């Protein structure tokens, strides 16, 4: 029976920042094709940046995304510093350490956020609650350093805007120490749990060749065996001066993507600890006034992958071209291959596994040909996913009994 049904997911959830619209073409339970439609939140930021002067652009690009809101300004200032020379030559030592700390704190909070959502999608609401509970202290650290829990306003060309006070360091270290047992718990909950393994393994597989062809980056690529990480390949901040490892997994499924993110958080904690103890005293800003004509490229390993900014200056105080490539631009497109061949109950999870800040399953229509139209809400899709988790659980229990 080839009875093709279209399941539209999306396009809009007012709480999330990246509305996307997925149309799943399904036959029975199986997803045979997928159409991805984006652009619901196109704000013309590249055009807006052309009307701002160089010091204003960080505030603008910070608002591209509320979750990786330090990656965009960081990539932007790197692009401008690439035009001027290199980051290490332009920026004072202490500012490099502060930039690295902000970048890694952001990675922890973002991965915890994703872990919570993934837990929610498969019906592990405890994981969801816990992940978000332990994300709070990370935001407290942000608040202490930057004054903001989101949109940190730390980055400027040539340095950072605020210093880390000596009297704050003990609190930061203590909070990190308290975070590690929580990470241990998540590691155990994810990697040792037979139900999660059975539920996530071999779901939404992206092979290495597919990852290359679709040009995916970041944890999505590292889960598919591509050994790449901007922090190591083209070190910015002080990533070449601290000890850490790039986490790579081979299988390319949702489980591998989860493992990559969980293990990366340990590395982030270690990086921040090293930075806090090695950080020298000194200036935090090089006070750069003029930007000469030229062009520059900045890239940052954002929590989701490589964030790319290209800047072209004609010597005035505004960029004449500012190209921004957020990582999801490459990774969301790869859903086209990752979700096809799976089932509907896996699709929610696969589409979420690349972490596109995605939760737009709020309004769902199931269309059976054109005469029979049924409107579901996003919860129904999540329920489908929960049902499958429960089925996996029962199978495992029966198998043991």
């Amino acid at each position, binding site marked *: 029976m080839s009875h093709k049904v279209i399941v539209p997911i999306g396009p809009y959830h007012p709480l999330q920042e990246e509305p996307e619209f997925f149309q799943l073409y399904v036959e029975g339970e199986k997803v045979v094709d997928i159409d991805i439609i984006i652009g619901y939140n196109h704000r013309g930021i590249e055009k807006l940046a052309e009307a701002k002067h160089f010091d204003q652009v960080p505030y603008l690009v910070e608002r591209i995304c509320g979750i990786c809101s330090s990656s965009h300004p960081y990539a932007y200032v790197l692009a401008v510093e690439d035009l001027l020379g290199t980051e290490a030559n332009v920026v004072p030592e202490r500012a490099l350490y502060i930039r690295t700390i902000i970048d890694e704190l952001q990675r922890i909070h973002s991965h915890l956020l994703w872990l919570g959502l993934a837990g929610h999608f498969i019906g592990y609401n405890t994981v969801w609650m816990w992940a978000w509970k332990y994300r709070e202290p990370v935001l407290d650290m942000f608040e202490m350093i930057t004054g903001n829990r989101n949109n940190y306003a730390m980055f400027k060309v040539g340095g950072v805007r605020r210093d880390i006070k000596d009297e704050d360091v003990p609190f930061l270290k203590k909070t990190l120490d308290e975070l590690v047992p929580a990470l241990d718990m998540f590691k155990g909950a994810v990697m040792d749990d037979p139900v999660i393994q059975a539920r996530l393994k071999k779901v939404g597989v992206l092979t290495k060749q597919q990852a290359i062809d*679709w040009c995916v980056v970041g944890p999505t690529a590292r889960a598919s065996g591509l050994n790449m990480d901007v922090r190591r390949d083209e070190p910015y901040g002080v990533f070449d001066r601290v000890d850490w490892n790039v986490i790579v997994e081979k299988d390319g499924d949702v489980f591998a993507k989860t493992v990559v993110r969980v293990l990366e958080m340990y590395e982030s904690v270690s990086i921040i600890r090293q930075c806090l103890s090695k950080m020298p005293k000194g200036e935090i800003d090089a006070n750069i006034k003029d930007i000469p004509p030229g062009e520059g490229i900045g890239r940052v390993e954002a929590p989701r992958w490589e964030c790319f900014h290209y800047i072209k200056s004609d010597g005035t105080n505004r960029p004449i071209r500012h190209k921004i*490539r957020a990582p999801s631009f490459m990774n969301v497109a790869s859903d086209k291959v990752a979700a096809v061949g799976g089932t509907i109950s896996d699709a929610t999870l696969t589409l979420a596994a690349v972490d596109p800040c995605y939760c737009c399953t709020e309004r769902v229509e199931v269309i059976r040909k054109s005469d029979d139209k049924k409107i579901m809400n996003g919860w129904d899709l999540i329920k489908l996913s929960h049902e499958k988790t429960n089925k996996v659980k029962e199978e495992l229990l029966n198998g043991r009994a």
Partner: protein
Amino acid sequence: MRDKIKEKLGSKIKDWKEQSARRVYFTVDKKDIVETVKFLFRDLGMRFSIASGSDTPEALEILYHFSNDPSGEFYSVRVFIEDKNNPEIDSITPLFPGAEWIEREMWELIGIKFKGHPNLKRLLLADEWPEGEYPLRHKNEP
């Protein structure tokens, strides 16, 4: 890597600029773009990071950014399209699907037509946006 590119592409390279240790920009003719991209992507195994189009006074310009991840180098291939009224260039999407979206984006925002693109339709702009208006062109600005 730089020698390999120079050796293979030879006289097709117009303007070779090593801005810093990790940044190389070079220009090729627009008719050579598919061959160049194929060589960088397939033969040298670089990762296609993104392409960026821009409107300059003389021509429309596309930069194809390639990342050689093991060495952290970035190679940006520049192409000029002089005919602003009917700008056309060969699509690289048939080589690998990762270029599909960015070509659609450049088509709708700058108005460059990609010949041979399998699915050239709007990506970001609203359906009501007028035909033939390209937001990243500078024609209305002083």
